[in-house]
Structures are given as C-alpha cells and as structure tokens.
C-alpha cells in the first residue's frame, strides 16, 4: 500500500503545472473560451506533445500504458488551472470506451488520431429522460443493410461540440451496444453549447444515422458493463479535477482571510472564521484521500470494488466539495460573488463535477447497494 506519487508522476505533474501556469492565465483562458473551438488549440497541442493523449492507452496502440492514477495526476492539474480542453471527453471517455471494448483494428483506426491530438472523441451515453441512469437507453440501432441505422437523442455529451467521432450507446435486439459515429454523418444533428464551467458539450439527435457493421464496438448487447467502467474512469478523473479546484479554492480563501482587513484586523483573526477555515482544509484532506483511492481502483475489473471506491469519492466530492465552495464564497463576502474574481470559476468547476456521471445521491445510493449487499460478518447477535 503506497499513497505517494511515483517519481515519474511527480515529474510529469510538475511539468504539466508549469506548462499550464504559463499558458493558462485568467486572460489566456478567457481568450480560449471566446475562440471558435472554445478551448486553446495551442495548449491542446502541447498536451499532445507531452504525451498526455497517449497516457491511458496500451503500448500496442501507441499509448503509454498508464493507469487511472496517472490520469488523476493530470486531472488535478486541469482542475487547478480550470482547463477546458476536451481531455476527459476524448481520452478518458471516448478513448476509454474504444480501449476497453474495441478490437485491435478499432484501436488502430480510432486511437491513433486521438493520441496524436488530431482526432477528438466524445461519448454519447446519457439521454434526456435518463437522469443519471446509464442503463436507460431509448436510442435504437436497427439492422439496416450491412450495418445499422441509429435513431434517438443524447444529452449533455461532454466535448460533443468539437468531437470528430462519437461513441454512442444504442439498443439492438441483443441489448445495449456501442457504435462509433462520425460527427458529419448524415442524419446526425449536433447542437453544441457551453457548460457552467466553460467546457463544451452538445445535444445529439440521431435521425436514422447509417453506420457500417464495423462501427459496432465490442460485443453486441454487451456494452453496459463497459459503459459503467468508462463512466467510473470519468467520474474518478472528474473527482481529481474537483480536488484540484478545491485546492485552489482553499488557497484563495486562506489568502483572503489573511489580507482582508475589517474592524482594524485581518478577518482571519476572528475565531469563528478560523474554525470554519479549518473545516475547509479538513474536508479537502479527507476528500483527497478518497480521490486517491478511487483512482487506484478505477482500472479494476471488479465492478463492486471499483464502484464502491468511485462512488465513495464521487458522493463525498459532490456534497462536501459543494459545501467547501459555498463556504469559501461566504468567507470572501461580496468579492466572492463577482465574476471577475476567479473564485467563482472554481466554484463552477466543483458544481459541474457533481452534475456529470451521477450526482452525489446517485453515488450514495450505489455505494449503499454495494455495501448493504456485501456479506454480513458473523453476527454476534444472530447467534
């Protein structure tokens, strides 16, 4: 058991932080948000050059064979810098689905571009009626000619505004299956927009989109466990982004408490505020531990162990992270609610971390189901 970053991870983390500090100031980020892409293409290219896009992919496919812990190390930096680059969408989600379920040919055809930073993927799993339920799929894939015809709607597709290829869940006669669909496919309507935290996303409408037989990724009807695993990976990365954001929220708040003067003294000298500041840091330390555990479990094929760890972190971050964000604004007072001060952007990142891939209640219930169904110890009372 070891909680320290490896030396490699530490170097990589330092390099990424340095790059983002140089390229991702508040004004640079604002410019990126205003650009056509909605993110910084220059940063995206540098990320590719650093090998970030190759991180979780097998060496056979040209990747670095990294773990979810490696992704976590990167995601913490994305959270700290409020990155809006579609790493999560393309590498973790879309790329994750292809990696876990795709054939060697599909690895070749889809991942090579991803690794080069040239192709962007997005995962279209959720639907408007489904809330957080990944198994609630109404989109259909009907056999048509040699391939399939896809019809239905997909909701809040992260990175969908700029994706080249979508990995779409749809129901065949066998059950839920995954298909790759080109962004330009006839019959596919992509409506892009921004999320609260500045990232891009889209609503998809598939009106009989024709795909070929080899667009099927993985086993026909066997996609649900893959989707759940991919979303656990995404949830784990999202939690890591959130802990990066919380780190910054706490740093900003502490700094403000030390500098803001009222009644002739720094407000951080008031005991009531001191104790509340302590709570922020206490929550941060405990949340961080769960984020580490989630990352170290997210690659596991044991769905119960993985689900338990990821849902613990996601639910904790969802509730306590939001509490930290709210408290930080309150401790700041007026300045905390202004748009110009960057605290609000970090708050938004934390909020969005709860909204995607299952909110706190969703994961609390999932954790409870796993936990309640685990075998009872030898009860001393039942004897």
């Amino acid at each position, binding site marked *: 058991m070891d909680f320290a970053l490896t030396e490699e991870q530490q170097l990589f983390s330092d390099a990424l932080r340095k790059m983002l500090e140089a390229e991702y100031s508040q004004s640079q980020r604002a410019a990126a948000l205003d650009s056509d892409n909605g993110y910084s293409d220059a940063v995206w290219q540098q990320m590719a050059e650093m090998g970030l896009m190759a991180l979780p992919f097998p060496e056979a496919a040209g990747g670095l064979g990294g773990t979810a812990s490696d992704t976590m190390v990167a995601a913490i930096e994305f959270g700290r810098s409020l990155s809006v680059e579609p790493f999560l969408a393309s590498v973790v989600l879309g790329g994750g689905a292809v990696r876990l379920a795709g054939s060697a040919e599909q690895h070749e055809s889809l991942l090579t571009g991803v690794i080069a930073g040239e192709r962007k993927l997005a995962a279209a799993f959720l639907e408007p009626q489904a809330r957080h339920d990944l198994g609630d799929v109404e989109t259909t894939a009907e056999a048509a000619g040699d391939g399939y015809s896809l019809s239905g709607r997909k*909701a*809040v597709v992260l990175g969908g505004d700029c994706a080249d290829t979508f990995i779409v869940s749809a129901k065949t006669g066998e059950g839920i299956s995954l298909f790759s669909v080109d962004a330009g496919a006839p019959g596919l309507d992509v409506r892009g927009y921004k999320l609260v935290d500045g990232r891009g996303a889209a609503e998809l409408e598939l009106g009989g989109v024709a795909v070929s037989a080899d667009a099927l990724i993985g086993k026909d009807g066997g996609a649900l466990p893959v989707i759940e695993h991919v979303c656990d990976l995404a949830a784990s990365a999202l939690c890591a982004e959130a802990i990066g954001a919380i780190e910054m929220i706490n740093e900003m708040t502490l700094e403000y408490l030390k500098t803001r003067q009222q009644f002739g003294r720094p*407000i951080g000298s008031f005991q*009531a505020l001191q104790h509340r500041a302590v709570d922020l840091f206490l929550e941060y330390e405990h949340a961080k531990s769960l984020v580490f555990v989630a990352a170290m479990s997210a690659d596991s094929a044991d769905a119960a162990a993985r689900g338990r760890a990821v849902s613990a972190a996601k639910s904790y971050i969802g509730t306590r992270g939001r509490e930290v964000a709210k408290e930080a604004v309150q401790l700041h007072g*007026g300045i905390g609610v202004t748009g110009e001060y960057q605290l609000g*952007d970090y708050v938004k990142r934390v909020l969005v971390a709860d909204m*995607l891939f299952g909110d706190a209640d969703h994961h609390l219930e999932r954790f409870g189901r796993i936990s309640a169904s685990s075998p009872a110890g030898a009860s001393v009372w039942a004897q």
Partner: protein
Amino acid sequence: MDLAFTPEEDAFRAEVRAFLDAELPRDIADKMHKAKRLTKDDCYRWQNALYHRGWVSPLWPVEYGGTGWTPVQHQIFDEECFAAGAPRVIPFGINLVGPVIIQFGSDYLKERFLKPMQSGEEFWCQGFSEPGSGSDLASLKTKAVLEGDHYVVNGQKTWTTLGHFADWIFLLVRTDTEAKQQMGISMLLVDLASEGVEMRPIVTMDGDHHVNEVFLDNVKVPAAHLVGEENKGWDYAKFLLVNERMGIASVGQSKSELELLKDVARLERKNGRPLIEDPLYQAKLSRLEIDLMALEYTNLRMLTSKGGKASVGALSSYLKIRGSELQQTIMELTMEAVGPYAAPWVPQANDADWNGMPVGPEYASASTSRFLDRRKTTIYGGSNEIQKNIIAKHILNL
C-alpha cells in the same frame, strides 16, 4: 392561541387575489415564474399599479400612504403577491430610505421624495458599502464637505443593487473625520444625474448584472438633501438596517418558490417515478418545507408578539439568518432536481424575448445561475456572521 384565519382575513385574501387577477400584468407574472429577467419598465408597471390601489407602501404610517394592516394581513398580502407572480417591489425606496425620511427627514424631503418614490416615477438605490468597508460599515471613507448651501462628495460605493434602474441614491458619508468612526457619519440623498456620478456594472458569477460600483467625484449635493442632522447618519442607518433584515426573511417569496420547485420535482423522473417521490429527494424537500414552516410561523409569532418594536428589531436577525439560508436551499434543491441539465450554461435563456431552443427542459436554464446568484443572500443586508455577532451581543449578552 388560534391558527385559523378570521373571516375578515379570508375576505382580505379574496380582495388581494381579485386585485392581482385584475391588475398584475400577465407577462410580468410569467417572467417571474420562469425566472426571466425583468426590465425597469416591468418594475415600474407593477409598482404603479400598487400605487394606484394604495398598497405600495403598506408599512408606512397611514398618513403617508400606509395601509394600517395587521401583521397577518401583511403576510397574506405578501404570500398572495408572490404566489401570483408579482415581483418584489424594489425595496431601496419604499422599504429602506422611505421610512427613514418619514421618521427623520425634513418636511421638504417628505414633500419632495415620498410621492414619486411610491408611484415608481423615481427609483432608489443604496450607497452604504465601500470596497474597504463591508461588514465593518462604520469604517466608510466617502467624504462630504459642506461648502455653502451644498455638500461636495468624493468617494466610492459598491454592491449597489439595481443602481442601473435608479434615479436617486441614499448615501452614507463621512462629514466629520475627527470624530469616532460611528459619530462622524451623515446620510445624503443624491441625484444620480448629478455631475461627477459614475455608475459601473459589476458582473456577478451568475453572469448577470445586478450590482454596481458608484464613483463620486466632487459631486454637489444640496444641503437640504441631508437627512435629519449632520453626523447622526449612523442612527438612521441602524434604523434602516433593522427594516432591511425584516423584509429579508422573504417568507412569501420562498413559499412561492418552493411551490415552483415542487412542480419541477413532479416533472423530473428518477428510477421510473416522479422525483418528488424519491425517498432521498423527498426527504430533502420535506426538510426544506418544514424549515420554511418554522420560519413562517416564527415570523408571525414575532410580528404578533406583544414585546413591541424593540424585541422585533433584535429577533429580526434570526429571521434574516434562516430566511436567507432557505432562499439558497430552494435554489440548491432546484439545481439538484434538474440533474445533468443543470450543467448547460445558456444565459440567453433568461431573456424573456429570447427565441432560441433551451437545452433540456425550460426550467433547467436558470437553475445553476440562480443557485450562484443566491449566494449573496447570506452576505448582503449585513452578513449572517454580522447577524450572529448582533445576537450574541444584544440578545444573549455574551
């Protein structure tokens, strides 16, 4: 002890409903219910309707146009207005500076300002906070120097809500720099069209423009626009802040917003049934509703108590604290109810005349921005921390 409304109270409720039915513009009610942005004209139209009915300033003394209602009638009026979708009357004139002018102002000020304040012809805004004086209001630095028949004002105010709708601002200014902090403060009424006044918007994290900075550069203010006596402004401010805290419990508004939230929870579905029937969500909703019941009846209990004005003033801090927290909780639970569709950021959707297609259900558009906007309720009107200091000192004598 009796929980029932009297027949007179029931009749009053019917009267209020009939008025709302007849006079509240439908387009305004629709904007309110759907959380769309109001224009200055919307605010004017509704306030003017109230003015013509004689209900615009119910809490004022009857001789100035108050209604002389009982506390229960106030509560009924408040509830019915919000339920119908009436906007809150912009409080800075009617609820804040109006009573100060009535209580402490000269006959000239009453004559000059009260009518247009009531009719909505002149909107007001507040100039108390400064960049360096938030919770520590008495440390304010904006200065006014009397030169002949006018004051010359220099300084900066901030967090001026709806300053961009306003015609007049009431300022706290320092008129004696030698005196102890609270002693050297006066209250001035200033025309925003005066030379040297500049209002700049502050965009808040919800992406919207509610508040402003006000820069005052050698602004000339007639000496007659001083409220009461020079250097007594702190007393007037305290009088005003108690009134501010009282309104801020916002029981009527929160009850109306809770109903809108429950509508959303009936429409959203989780695990195949309405979200309002989901055990965890229902429990949160029930806790909120029970807290709001407690607030509602605490408000009534205090308003009808025989302890009189003094104890109401002190206890209003309890109402401010819990009331502002519940205003936030309502928006937090709305954001939660909406689920993944709370994530899209479509600020245009808040404009009533936007023709675009919303992302997800229509009610989703404003959910996160309103959650963000509501963070202010525990900060403004004297932060909740300041309220706790007041209670600890003045009620608990700690």
